[in-house]
């Protein structure tokens, strides 16, 4: 098998997010590693994954899950070596899969030699690689993001005798992108990994690269200009590699990270996800359709990255205060479930382990305009452990089987980086890959089937999107259209059965064929098209032209 040579492959792809530490432990030291990922490439291929996104694997003191990089040129030792990375890329490519990796461009660890050198004295050549100040009131309009742990974006460094700027944890000083040397250094990092064969980056925290007084220090023009430089480098020397931007902003601001097709290839659509949960609980489509209506058109070739959950908390930064209170009330009844401005829980527990709700959500993820990103473990409905600190609750070991340590590692239990889930509902005895692969009716098999249906149809990744109105607020119907192919998706957000009448007259004469069983439905005529949906039910139809 070889890689598709279409440079816009990412529009048809299924992404899968891997937390390397928690995925599979090949050397039984209690922590997952790259070799462990290689061991399970066949599983990911079987599931239908096209691109693996590795959470940070670069060397780091690991005070923030690896988002605190101390060396941009080597792999975290317990994860393996550069050779392991080369082997992973080779093995993935041989299966037709790609691999991208988290790259933190905004900041480094305070353990990074650059920072250590910078703090040593005002004359240090690296001093100007970070943002220093004697006055911690500068850039006062910038919000504090990790409100649970940080009180200011400035911290005092007694060694340097000055305050340094950090948008995230205080052990993560921001790089100074005003300095051309920093800009060049980061481009070198990008080239190094792409030369190694990596298929792209998930660019962490991109809105914050530059600062300017009197602004909120987010989405500044200079930041966009630098990202365009990275893109130009990719286009010139590494065609077919992808840049996926993490910009937790409103859709209109995020869209700017696509540039005019000359910045990032993909951006996460952050506000959509909390609104899907809101819509489900309210049994009405408007929280979703409203945010989609506010989502601007994006340049040709650009693509939204969609997700239901990820390795972070379910972020509620991009909702109103009232909506945030609502989400806390509905999905974080226990205060332990909250973190920063979000909810630290996995998909299955958020949906009360409701099988129909999860299927509906995956149905939406796979049919809304964008590229779906699955989070490891969510394909089998893994749970979380809210009694672990920070975001560790959603980063417990992957549950491969009912064996010791969930089949994740043969190390001593006490040596595991985190304990696997062992409760009767979500624990690895009840919920694991092996058992779900054996059962045709399992959530895993169900999801795989729908992934396969999507994969054969570029319309899902590339087609136009149009919401079909219906007076029933609980029904969310939309069209995906690519040239002659028309897919109709009809979703019931209510836990009760619902009827809906759709105005499909413009497809008069076409026959809806349901995509799972290829079941033909009555031909579309001049009258409103009546459908009935079961609780949380949904249909995907292909509207076939008359023979």
């Amino acid at each position, binding site marked *: 098998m070889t890689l598709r040579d279409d440079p816009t492959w990412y529009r048809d792809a299924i992404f899968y997010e891997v937390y390397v530490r928690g995925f599979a432990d090949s050397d039984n030291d209690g922590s997952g590693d790259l070799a462990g990922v290689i061991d399970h490439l066949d599983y990911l291929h079987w599931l239908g994954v096209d691109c693996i996104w590795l959470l940070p694997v670069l060397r780091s003191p690991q005070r923030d899950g690896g988002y605190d990089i101390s060396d941009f040129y080597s792999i975290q030792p317990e994860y393996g070596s550069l050779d392991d990375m080369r082997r992973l890329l080779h093995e993935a490519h041989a299966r037709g899969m790609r691999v991208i990796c988290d790259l933190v461009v905004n900041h480094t660890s305070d353990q990074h030699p650059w920072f250590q050198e910078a703090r040593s004295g005002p004359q240090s050549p690296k001093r100007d690689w970070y943002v220093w100040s004697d006055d911690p009131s500068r850039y006062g309009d910038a919000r504090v993001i990790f409100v649970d742990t940080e009180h200011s974006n400035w911290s005092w460094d007694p060694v340097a005798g000055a305050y340094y700027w950090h948008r995230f944890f205080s052990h993560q000083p921001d790089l100074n992108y005003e300095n051309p040397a920093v800009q060049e250094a980061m481009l070198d990092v990008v080239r190094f990994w792409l030369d190694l064969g990596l298929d792209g980056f998930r660019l962490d925290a991109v809105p914050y690269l530059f600062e300017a007084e009197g602004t909120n220090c987010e989405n500044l023009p200079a930041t966009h200009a630098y990202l365009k430089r990275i893109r130009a480098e990719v286009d010139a020397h590494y065609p077919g590699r992808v840049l996926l931007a993490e910009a937790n902003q409103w859709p209109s601001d995020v869209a700017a990270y696509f540039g005019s097709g000359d910045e990032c290839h993909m951006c996460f659509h952050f506000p959509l996800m909390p609104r899907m949960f809101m819509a489900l*609980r309210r049994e*009405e489509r408007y929280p979703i359709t409203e945010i989609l*209506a506010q989502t601007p058109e994006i340049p040709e070739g650009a693509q939204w990255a969609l997700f239901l959950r990820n390795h972070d908390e379910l972020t509620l930064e991009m909702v109103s205060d009232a909506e945030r209170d609502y989400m806390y009330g509905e999905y974080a009844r226990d205060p332990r479930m909250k973190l920063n401005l979000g909810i630290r829980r996995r998909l299955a527990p958020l949906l009360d382990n409701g099988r129909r709700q999860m299927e509906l959500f995956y149905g939406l993820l796979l049919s809304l305009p964008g590229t779906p990103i699955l989070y490891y473990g969510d394909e089998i409905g893994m749970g979380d452990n809210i009694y672990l600190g920070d975001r560790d609750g959603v980063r417990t070991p992957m549950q491969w089987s009912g064996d010791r340590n969930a089949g994740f590692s043969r190390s001593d239990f006490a040596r595991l980086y985190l304990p696997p889930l062992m409760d009767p509902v979500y624990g690895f005895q009840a919920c694991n890959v092996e058992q779900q692969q054996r059962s045709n009716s399992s959530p895993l098999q169900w999801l795989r089937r729908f992934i396969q249906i999507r994969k054969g149809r570029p319309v899902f990744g590339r087609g136009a999107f149009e919401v079909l109105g219906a*007076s029933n*607020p*609980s029904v969310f119907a939309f069209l995906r259209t690519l040239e002659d192919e028309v897919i109709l998706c009809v979703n019931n957000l209510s836990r009760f059965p619902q009827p809906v009448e759709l*105005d499909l007259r413009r497809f008069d004469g076409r026959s809806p064929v349901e995509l799972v069983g290829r079941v033909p439905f009555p031909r579309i005529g001049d009258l409103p098209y009546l459908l009935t949906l079961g609780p949380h039910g949904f249909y995907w139809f292909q509207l076939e032209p008359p023979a």
Partner: protein
Amino acid sequence: MTLPTDLRRLPGLERALHDYLPRQRWFAGAAPVATAELVATVWLRRRSPAAAVTVVDVTCTDGTAARYALLLGLRPASEPLPPAPAAALLELADAPAAPEWLVYDGLADPTILLDLLARTHPGQTVTGAGAAVRFAPAPGGGPGPAAPPQTARLLAADQSNSAATYDDRWFLKWFRRLWPGLNPELELPLLLLGNGFTALPRPVGSITLELADGPATLALIQTHLGTGSDGLALALTSLRDLFGDLREDADGELPLPVTVDQVLQGQGSSFEPHAAHLGHLTAALHLALARGGDDPATRARTGGVRELTAWASQTESMLAALLARGDPQLASLATHRSRMHAAIRAIGTLATAGQLIRVHGDYHLGQVLRTDNGWHVLDFEGEPARPMAERRQLASPLRDVAGMLRSFSYAAEVALRQQTTPADPAWRSLEPYGREWTRRCQRRFLDTYQDRVRGTGLLPDAPAAVAKLLTAFQLEKALYEVRYEVDHRPEWVTIPLNGIARICSPKAG
């Protein structure tokens, strides 16, 4: 085969109208038609399909009279009819000259509908026998469409008017019953847009009939907001979820573990956020209406004793008329009689009625539409059964507010009736939740409304005065509902009667 200039000379037409009119949903008469007289004909097209605007004066055998506007389509009998409901066809079969021409409802003919639209931009006037028809673009409605719509079709008939759509982008609203004067459905949206309120369908064009006794709005073309859900559908969704939870609990025969208040507090599908949005929307609507326009009939003024007394006496006489029916279904009205009298008279003692402004006039959850772009207000024509002069009168904005408050109560009662019947034991356990749902929505709606209008002078300053007016207007609305339900849906008359009971003794629930 030539068509007469005056359609009265088309044999059998007036006769055919006798049968045709009572079959139409928009026909207001309750008794058989006694006479149907064509008083005006304006030909729009004389080639097939021909089309004429006709004005018909109808008297019924019970002595009631009304004037209707018809758009007749005519095709030679040799041609096929457009695809249209059978009800659209006028049966001229028994006429001697038939079947030379087939006569039908012109609104069912896409060719004629598109012809109407084409005439509104840039506008023209067509003169005929006894009348003229004036087509005009809406002032400020902008130029015509860059790409004119290609399709048109008649939608299902409404009770008072007929609607058609152009490419699902625009709506045509044809007012069936003809009242002399400017229709608020055209007037108020223009006024509101001018005053910065944009959450409504925009008028695009209008068709006016010029008769000897003055102009009358015949039809209106406005933008289509896109499909959405009206407030009632969303309220029922919220209530369905609430009652659904409770039924699941009640079926287990376990005592509900929490209080009514706690259940509503934690309701994930609460309607309260929507009620708050509607409170804002309604306040914005009223503040824009209060700014008025060039026409003196739209300028706000302060209401005083004269209006307060008039409102009180109108409500009193409605109550008296209902009591005089001696209907046993209305027995509970008599129980609350003295409290109602007190509540109605209470407004007579107020110093001021607050501002009198143009109001929506028929405001309830079915008149607000949620789309992907937020909430919108629909249907400014007021109550279609009233003459234009009455509908265009200044009134207290609290009348609209009272309408919405009653509507929350209606939604809860309707939802309850979807779940159960009064004879079912579940009724008694569910009802308090519906009442609490209503109370919370009403309070959120009212709180946000009052927050927004505070300090603008729209309402009387004294909270007690506002409360008294709201009580009186809710009673008036509820009495109106009683009259309607008793005549049309007697099984639902308990809804407004329960409402009256609660309005009269608010502490009870």
